């Protein structure tokens, strides 16, 4: 199993990781815990699975791309 993980913006800078690969995880929350070594989740943390907004308890599958990021501020 191989999960692609991405971090963006202030979160990327704070935890110092832009990308990671994790091997075994069943939910987005697992992915966070493994990739960040159980770092505390910031308030308002957002997660996307395969480019769609998702919940932390959503199941993930081999080959998925999971992204974590802070509230968006575009436009």
């Amino acid at each position, binding site marked *: 199993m191989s999960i692609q993980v991405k971090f*963006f*913006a202030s979160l990327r800078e704070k935890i110092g990781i832009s990308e990671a690969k994790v091997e075994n995880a069943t939910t987005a929350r697992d992915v966070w815990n493994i990739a960040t070594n159980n770092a505390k989740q910031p308030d308002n943390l957002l997660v*996307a699975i395969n*480019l769609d907004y998702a919940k932390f308890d959503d199941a993930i599958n081999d080959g998925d791309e999971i*992204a974590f*990021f*802070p509230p*968006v*501020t*575009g436009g």
Partner: protein
Amino acid sequence: MSIHISEHAFDPWQEIAKHQKNSSLDNQFGATASFVGTMRDFNDNADVSGMVLEHYPEMTERYLQQLEQQAKQRWSLLDSLIIHRVGVINPANPIVLIACWSAHRRAALDACAWLIEELKHNAPFWKKETGHHGEHWVEKNTDGF
């Protein structure tokens, strides 16, 4: 329906004119509504001299395409155009352009207002402002007022 993510400064009015000219809209539309978001030189009362806009390229593209599709389903739009800057942005630079074309005015006006609101709330872009006091990430968007 068209989406551009641009690393270079753009002139929104030239882009609208160009899009209109190159499309097959001729004589069919009666209404064009547009919104342009521009970088101001101040925000929350602090001087801001520059900005870097980060995004999540694949998700941005996908999200904006979904938005355009939803707008098209909800309103009778003839065409739409979304342009968003990323990278280094200077004061007075346009950041985002939304333009909608329709036969009658309500579709274009309502879709345009809806698109900028949805984009602001959900499209994966992040602003980092730079100024006299160093740089900082914008924590959240204003509610528009």
